[in-house]
């Protein structure tokens, strides 16, 4: 498995753990009504799960297993893969911190940065993986 795929998949697993930890706490809190303000973390739970875990796992597996782009660059431009990794994770962490902060009365502007970073990550991922969605190359006729 290439280094980049390992980074994506291991980070996805960490987000999976965090998401279910948070989801479990939210359920416990809902049942026992320990601290009502924790409810502001619900959208963070959804996005840790669907962006941090699911999307990131898909990125790692797709970059690893989709048909190679070419013999010289089997996984396309790997630097773009790192751009996806960086923007996605910085954007998601900003969201995880500032979305509840906003609900508790804090500033909202870091979430604008977070939104832009996550949009960039997903568009660059599509740009990177699109040419690798292809059938088997036909053998050249001599």
């Amino acid at each position, binding site marked *: 498995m290439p280094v980049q795929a390992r980074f994506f998949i291991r980070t996805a697993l960490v987000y999976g753990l965090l998401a279910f930890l948070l989801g479990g706490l939210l359920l416990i809190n809902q049942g026992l009504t320990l601290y009502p303000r924790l409810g502001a973390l619900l959208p963070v739970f959804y996005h840790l799960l*669907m962006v941090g875990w699911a999307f990131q796992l898909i990125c790692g597996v797709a970059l690893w297993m*989709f048909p190679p782009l070419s013999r010289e660059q089997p996984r396309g431009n790997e630097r773009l893969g790192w751009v996806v990794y960086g923007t996605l994770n910085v954007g998601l962490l900003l*969201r995880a911190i500032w979305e509840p902060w906003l609900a508790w009365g804090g500033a909202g502007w870091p*979430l604008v940065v977070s*939104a832009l970073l*996550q949009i960039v990550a997903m568009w660059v991922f*599509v740009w990177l993986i699109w040419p690798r969605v292809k*059938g088997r190359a036909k053998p050249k006729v001599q």
Partner: protein
Amino acid sequence: MPRLSQWMIRSSLLWLLLGSTVGGLLLMNKAVPFSTWSACDPQTCTGWAALLRWLAGWLWAWRSSHVHTMLVGWMLQLAYGVAFWILPRLDARGSRGNEALAWGCYWALNLGALLAVLEPPLQSWLPGWLAATLLVLGGGLYIVANAAFVAHAWPRVVAFRLHPRPERASAKAE
């Protein structure tokens, strides 16, 4: 990768572009509402300020569209596209079974998702019966799409097995 998987995966990537953009705009609007980007009196607002104010309200209607886009258009369709590609073949010739069912799933899923995504933002302009019809059709198409894919994939979920090569199979038959 077979043609249907290419169609499903590329379509799912297009849904991802739409879903991520809508999600990003929703988050920005939640953080710093577009209506506050330009100070003006709501009664007399015109031009860009009026457009931003209207957009801030209308964007909220896209919230459930964002969920349909990301869960059905992007993730479910990607999973089906990859499953059609990698699930075990049925015989030595590489048959994937009833491909018409999988194509049926593709069209029903995308049309269903399109209706489910468009209904909430268009709801305020549509007569009630038409909005309800879009939802009923979208829901029905979701059911058809998933039933078709289950029917297609069920026989392909099998234990590992070795198929004889087609030439040998035909030689034995002779």
